[in-house]
């Protein structure tokens, strides 16, 4: 099993969810986050006060899938979340040792 963590632009979330559902992903975790990468922040001006905002809002997806589906998930996120502009996000893939479904006690691929 693989854990795929992706940080993407918030407005792409719905599109990515739909595309992933189409290829058979049956669950994901979503968090609103702030961060920075090569996209720099922006400046906010309130009357005379100017603040550099270095962290920009992103959405973080966490998806656990079977090894066989992992590459397809990565490719789907990449192609769907992409705008070709700086700040589109990043995708990380990690190995997962174990998965358990709380209701039934099923494990690993059966639990996904």
């Amino acid at each position, binding site marked *: 099993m693989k854990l795929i963590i992706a940080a993407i632009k918030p407005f792409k979330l719905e599109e990515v969810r739909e595309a992933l559902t189409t290829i058979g992903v049956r669950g994901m975790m979503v968090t609103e986050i702030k961060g920075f990468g090569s996209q720099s922040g922006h400046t*906010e*001006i*309130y*009357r*005379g*006060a100017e*603040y550099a*905002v270095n962290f920009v809002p992103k959405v973080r997806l966490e998806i656990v899938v079977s090894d066989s589906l992992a590459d397809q998930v990565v490719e789907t996120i990449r192609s769907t979340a992409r705008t070709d502009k700086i700040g589109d996000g990043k995708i990380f893939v990690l190995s997962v040792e174990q998965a358990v479904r709380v209701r039934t006690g099923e494990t690993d691929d059966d639990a996904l």
Partner: protein
Amino acid sequence: MKNLTKLSALGALGALAALPALAQETAAPLAPYTFEQSVNNGDVAWMSISTVLVLLMTVPGLALFYGGLVRTKNMLSVLTQVFAICAIVAIIWVTYGYSLAFTYGGSLDAYVGGFSKMFLAGVDLNSKVATFTNGVYLPEYTFIAFQMTFACITPALIVGAFAERIKFSSLLVFSILWVTLIYFPMAHMVWWWGGPDFLAQEQTAKLIAEAAGDTAAAEAAAANLAANGLLWNWGALDFAGGTVVHINAGVAGLVGCIVLGKRIGYGKESMAPHSLTMTMIGASLLFVGWFGFNAGSNLESNSITSLAIVNTFVAACAGGAAWMLVEWAMKGKPSLLGLVSGVVAGLVAITPAAGFAGPMGSVVLGLVAGVLCFLFVAYAKNALKLDDSLDVFGVHGIGGIIGAIATGILVNPALGGAGIPDYLSQPGTLQVAEYVASTAIMAQVKAVIFTLLFSGIGSFILYKLVDVTMGLRVKQEVEREGLDIAEHGERAYYM
């Protein structure tokens, strides 16, 4: 605005005789001036509405306007400060504030009133106060309530200057001292006068005495004519409180932010407003309520009320548009905060001129105030290294000064103004005095300088007094944690 004490003492004769038409036979020998006091239900209705409109400016208008501009952790502290000041000053007002502001002050009459109406002594359902028209009166309770809202909002305006760092208990003590020693005397100095009928009565008495060669009586009448507040006698015009409310609070704010010092982290940490939505709601409530403030200050429901409404409306819009456009040009983006700040700046500037300027003059005044307040807040404040947290001086001080001086220019009938009122040349009628620019503008400049000094120095002494005895500022850890939890034991938002 006016008082009845003088009238009842000196005008009992006049009050009895009922000659509504008051034919003015200037050529014939003068008869003593007599008048009736009639109360118009329409005026009372309008003034009652104006009263609650001005209250709406304070709670929730000003509270939300300021509250949205602070950080989440200090939201409730600002709301509480504004509301608590309103509550306490209202009680002070009926206890002794009204008396200090709007009664005869004996030997100190030029500066402050006396204690004759403490606890509203002598005020009953039949008490009346003069308006700006001969023979037209308001129930005294109406006037007391209307002016109460002014006393409530003025000290509340100041809290924006040292928001996020003042100790609540010290703020309350300061506010009580400030209204007592600064606000009530200012209101007296600017707005205390005998009223149209009193002036007509004394002017007529003076002319009769002069014609009869009775110098003692003529001097007595002249002294009565001069028994007004100091700034009133200077000829300073302040329709709705440019000096009394805005410059007064603005300067007190400026001095306050200097005495208290900057917030911890000022210039390093982000102190961005936590909810400009709240600020927009607050600014809009201020805008709406301001019609009561400015047009209500006419004390009657007549054509000058209408003029004040138009002026207030267009000056506010001009201020908002000007700030937005100049910010767009100089900072790159038109911000909501800039827009609503400009609206408030325009409202502040038109306040002293509301019933004196013409609509086109008001547009120009709003534009000028929007641009100059923006420049002060966006550039001068940083250059001066002031942490006037919510720009009390930048908006109310600067806007008030611009408005007060401009009133002396825009009152000119040649510029569409209503002209300077003259109750003396034909006693019993309201005439427009000849406009002399130098005299009119100088009177305004003098009033501005006086207010800056009186409020600036007076407020400084009061701040120091409270600081030495109680400490003005919260402890460092309280300031870091936020005043809501540390001072009030509650938080604005659970998130």
